[in-house]
């Protein structure tokens, strides 16, 4: 088996991160991700779909931190299965299901998924809304909106609106409209290198800094779209401070009614957000956010922060 090689720049960057074990990270990058999926309870009962899958040779284990989430083994390629094509299941990485669990959509809420394509988290939000309330799924790219539209169609979501807009400008027409907003921001993807080693090859600090500027604008726009008392979840599938803690820190500095909330996810291994880096002291609130390293669960790496917009 070939070995992943990191550029010197990336190796040096990662080794400066607090609380990281580089050897374990490389091992995680070389392992394939577990095959995971969600049952679409908008189309049929969980038990009925599980029964179908079992009868077709799949062994399934529930994912403790994600309602309706399972890891599959055995059987044919799930992506080519009848269940997938009919929208009875949605294939999604196990840790990628965590941000929506942190958002905790409730029936009746109006929820914005600001960077929605291809729609994994949008379909998960729709499922937890159970047909009551509204999901607004937005993306900036026409091509990616096509994939988003296909996935929401296959999932059978009636209470959704798809918009094609620059997320940075969303608050100019949707200020204080939403109960909850998810920003699963475009990022340098260091948490999912095992999907494609090319991510590590093309990584550069220049790209990270550009993404960080974009993410700061997205998080501010998202926060301004929240009703007072609303909840914002900011997540990325990367490990850099610039795209995670520094973005949330920027929001805390820019909006005095933003507060970070504690996160609890059953059965998922994670660590607190970083509050000190490279001689910089960040807001202590950031320790309430969570960092998930790829080797914590031998799956994807993620950063997740849950922020409340205080009323008044």
């Amino acid at each position, binding site marked *: 088996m070939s070995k992943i090689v990191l550029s010197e720049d990336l190796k040096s960057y990662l080794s400066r991160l607090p609380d990281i074990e580089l050897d374990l990270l490389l091992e995680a990058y070389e392992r394939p991700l577990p095959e995971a999926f969600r049952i679409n309870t908008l*189309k*049929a009962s969980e038990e*009925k779909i599980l029964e179908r899958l079992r009868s077709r040779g799949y062994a399934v284990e529930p994912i403790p931190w994600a309602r309706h989430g399972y890891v599959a083994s055995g059987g044919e390629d799930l992506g*080519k*299965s*009848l269940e997938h*094509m*009919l*929208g*009875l299941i949605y294939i999604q990485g196990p840790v990628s299901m965590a941000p929506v669990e942190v958002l905790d959509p409730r029936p009746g809420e*109006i929820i914005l998924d600001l960077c929605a394509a291809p729609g994994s988290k949008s379909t998960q939000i729709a499922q937890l809304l159970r*047909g009551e*309330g*509204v999901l*607004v799924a937005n993306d900036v790219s026409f091509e990616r*909106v096509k994939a988003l*539209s*296909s996935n*929401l*169609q*296959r999932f*059978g*979501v*009636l*209470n*959704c*609106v*798809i*918009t*094609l*807009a620059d997320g940075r400008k969303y608050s100019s*027409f*949707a200020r204080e*409209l939403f109960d909850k907003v998810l920003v699963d921001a475009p990022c340098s993807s260091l948490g999912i290198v095992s999907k494609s080693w090319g991510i590590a090859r093309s990584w550069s600090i220049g790209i990270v800094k550009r993404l960080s500027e974009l993410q700061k604008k997205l998080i501010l726009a998202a926060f301004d779209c929240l009703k007072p008392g609303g909840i914002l979840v900011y997540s990325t599938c990367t490990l850099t401070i610039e795209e995670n803690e520094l973005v949330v820190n920027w929001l805390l500095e820019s909006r005095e009614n933003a507060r970070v909330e504690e996160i609890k996810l059953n059965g998922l291994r994670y660590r607190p957000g970083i509050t000190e880096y490279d001689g910089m002291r960040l807001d202590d609130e950031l320790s309430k956010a969570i960092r998930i390293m790829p080797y914590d669960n031998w799956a994807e790496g993620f950063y997740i922060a849950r922020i409340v917009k205080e009323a008044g």
Partner: protein
Amino acid sequence: MRVLTSAERKYLVRRLMDQHGVEDAFEGLMLIRSGQGRIRAATKEAYEVACRLRKVQQVGLYVAKIVKGDVVLSIEGSQLLGSAITRNAVELSEEEAEEWMKAAPIQKSGKFEGKYVVARCGDFYLGSGRVSRDGKIYPQVAKWRRIPEE
């Protein structure tokens, strides 16, 4: 994005009654016309939120299209109507359902009225298929929904 007029809605409901025995199809949902004769269904609340937003691409779910006066149901459209479909429906085996989702024609005996039937496999509905004179049913499954051939 335009809501179906009362006359357009009545026509759709009547055709679904004639073709598939469905009474009051899509009752309680907003029906919206999109391109190429396609009809989308959405909740009233989703439609109201869409009216407050900009850059809206789509609302709700594609459920049907009108082809030369007939209603062709999408997979989700037929699933939504479900057991209300009492006429011109065919039951498929698991193997036939797989073939259907590859858009392969299915040979079925029986007499059908009109040009379209709805397929189902147990509790799951698979949209409309066009009946040809040779007794084969041609599934109207969009290319992106098909199970890829080996």
